[in-house]
């Protein structure tokens, strides 16, 4: 017996929506970042699922690239958060409004 592909896709969609809800309701910049990582991972799960069900390894290669880009994104984003915290002494994204007029 094999698991139908729909279950993996539904699980991935549920993880993605959880990440979206986290981005929408949390006001902490680091928390928003972690929710973005969650969304990236749910997209990875979809890629690996299709790669496995089609018997094609290029999807998993793509997941490898996504991981590298996610690492780069996390390092730059957290550096930006540290720089912001130095200047404003807060990471609440409602109070960071220096571009607002």
């Amino acid at each position: 017996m094999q698991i139908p592909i729909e279950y993996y896709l539904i699980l991935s969609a549920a993880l993605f929506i959880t990440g979206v809800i986290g981005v929408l309701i949390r006001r902490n910049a680091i928390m928003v970042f972690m929710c973005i990582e969650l969304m990236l991972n749910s997209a990875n799960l979809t890629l690996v699922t299709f790669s496995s069900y089609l018997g094609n390894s290029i999807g998993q290669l793509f997941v490898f690239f996504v991981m590298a880009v996610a690492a780069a994104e996390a390092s730059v984003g957290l550096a930006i958060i540290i720089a912001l915290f130095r200047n404003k002494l807060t990471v609440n994204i409602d109070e960071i409004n220096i571009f607002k007029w």
Partner: protein
Amino acid sequence: MSLVAVLFIVFGLISLTSAILMVTRVNLVVSALFLIVNFASLAGLYLTLNAQFIAVAQVIVYAGAIMVFFLFVIMLINPEHEKRFLEYKPQIKIFAIVIAVLIFLQIAYIIFLSKPSGKLNKEVSQSISAGTIEEIGRQMFINYVLPFEAVGYLLLAAAIGALVLAKKKFK
């Protein structure tokens, strides 16, 4: 039930509950630890999909490197206590959750309506050979050399950029 089905149910439940707990906890360190649990269970799900290399890379890169980095930053800047869920603008948050759940229902409806399992027949031997590091490495170094090099430069640029950004106060 086969072993794969049992593992799928167990890891799927763990990943969903840890994701929901991660979003709802107030303490940032606790939610980072739940995110690590979520990544580890996703690695288990990759194993049920015969993707050994990606599962190991998930544990090393995500649950290891990236989350250590997150915990470092959380403990470095020690952010102020966030307000609880219903203390601050509850109407907007409930509206956001309702919209997100509606979008999830739409996605689920489309997935079940299109029935991808009717068109896809999983060949187990093909699926196993696709997930080995041999096959992925062959694809990476024959057909996808240029993206591989580009990712290397991207990581270098990100490391330098992170150093420059976090070094000192910019005016």
